[in-house]
């Protein structure tokens, strides 16, 4: 299923009255939203359930009430967790790490084919990490590591991408490169959902936003949703 460079079949992830609990405590409720092709942001203060919601869409967290649809094939969801989840001391080269993104085709036994190796190389070039490709992942900076994670997502080649704070702790050059990649995914017709804190970034690139907040959620065009976020913040202050 090589999708790069052309529009994929329309996929939409919908949330219908979703409630999420974290060890019994309610972290979000009555969340209704629709994520179609293109870029959608998830915003909100810490503890509002953004990460939990992303994990629920991927199937790593149970849904307490309501319904999520469009996520029935987990192998079509590319997930970028917050960086702490990966063992960055594991002795593996960047290239081999990226090639694991082709797990859906290779599985545990099949050798990495020439076509997969070519896709890995294309992702390496796209993320501008040619000089690092055959080095171990051990000594990468956080920016380089995030490029590596993006390269693996490129190789995974999924119609839906769920990114948890993708630009945290990366330098400006990396952020620019990663945003370019998000725009490329958008142009290819993929569904891209990103948890983000930077409202200026959201306004610049994300037409729609889901705002999670204990005083209620908002979903719609980013400008008006973010204005509501500022009202919430002033209320609290």
């Amino acid at each position, binding site marked *: 299923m090589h999708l790069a460079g052309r529009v994929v079949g329309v996929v939409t992830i919908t949330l219908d009255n979703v409630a999420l609990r974290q060890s019994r405590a309610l972290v979000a409720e009555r969340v209704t939203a629709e994520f179609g092709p293109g870029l959608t942001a998830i915003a909100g203060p810490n503890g509002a359930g953004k990460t939990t919601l992303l994990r629920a869409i*991927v*199937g*790593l967290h149970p849904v307490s009430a309501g319904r999520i649809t469009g996520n029935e094939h*987990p*192998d079509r*969801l590319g*997930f970028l*967790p917050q960086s702490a*989840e*990966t*063992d960055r*001391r*594991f*002795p*593996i*080269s960047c290239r081999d*790490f990226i090639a*694991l993104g082709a*797990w*859906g085709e*290779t*599985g*545990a*036994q099949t050798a990495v084919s020439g076509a997969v190796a070519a896709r890995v190389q294309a992702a390496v070039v796209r993320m501008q990490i040619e000089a690092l490709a055959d080095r*171990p992942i*051990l000594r990468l900076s956080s920016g380089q590591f995030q490029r590596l994670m993006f390269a693996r997502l490129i190789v995974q080649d999924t119609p839906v991408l769920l990114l948890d704070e993708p630009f945290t702790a990366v330098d400006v050059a990396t952020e620019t490169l990663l945003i370019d990649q998000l725009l490329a995914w958008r142009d290819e017709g993929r569904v891209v959902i990103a948890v983000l804190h930077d409202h200026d970034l959201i306004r610049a690139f994300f037409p729609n936003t889901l705002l999670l907040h204990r005083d209620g959620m908002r979903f719609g065009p980013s400008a008006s949703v973010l204005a509501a976020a500022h009202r919430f913040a002033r209320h609290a202050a």
Partner: protein
Amino acid sequence: MLYDLLIDPFTQGFMRRALAGCLALSIAAPPLGVFLTIRRMSLTADVLQHGILPGIALGAIAGGLSIWWMGAGGLIAGLLVALLAAAISRATDGREDAGFAGVYLLALAAGVALATHQRGIDLTHLLFGSVLAVDDPALVLMAGVASITLFGLALIWRGLVLESLDPLFLRARGQGRLGMLFHAGFMLLVVLCVVGGFAALGTLMSVGLMMLPAIAARHWSVRLSGQIAASVVVALASSTLGLLLSYHVNLPAGPAILLVAGGIWLASVAAGPEESLRARVAIGAQD
């Protein structure tokens, strides 16, 4: 002179059998040790080697001093202890060391108590190994375990790498069960290798051939393939030199082999190319 030192001992049949068995395990066990150290599961290996002891003793009580009864008892006990260790690890959220210490001390005490009551078991041989114990069935066990381990490891290799590196990846793809299968298969191979080594190396030393070469190998390469190759070379050398040491100065085989492996480990910490004292000094000089 050199001939007497290095070759002559192996003209004896029992030394050749011990060497063949230990070399087989030296190829199979250290790669598992490399994965154990990378996954910070060295303590689990400790728990397992003590855990199999009561099983071996019970096997001897049930079926006599046959390697197959003792091996089967050790295998069952090892698998139960592996499950118990996993449960403790989960229940304590990774702070498992106290629970592990409880399990292995209890297992050691129970194993020694059971073994002393069984006529015909030489406790020193059971705990520390004996080259004389490597009869034909023991050799078949060691070679069989080594073959199964190499084949099994090849089968789960990529999955094990992925599970160790990024456990969320398979779960997020809805393949969490497959990930657990890789982990379970890996633990099965570890238990097999520990049991496989007990006749020659002794239950207390068996894990040594898995772990010492693996931790020495960390100082030789930053790549998985490099660490695995280095660990196997260290284990092969330790087995050969250790058996010679055991022969010439009349030591049990287990401690002799581990002394050599431990010596290589210390030398690697001091002077290996990666993360060694020498490498640190070199980096310090650059600054």
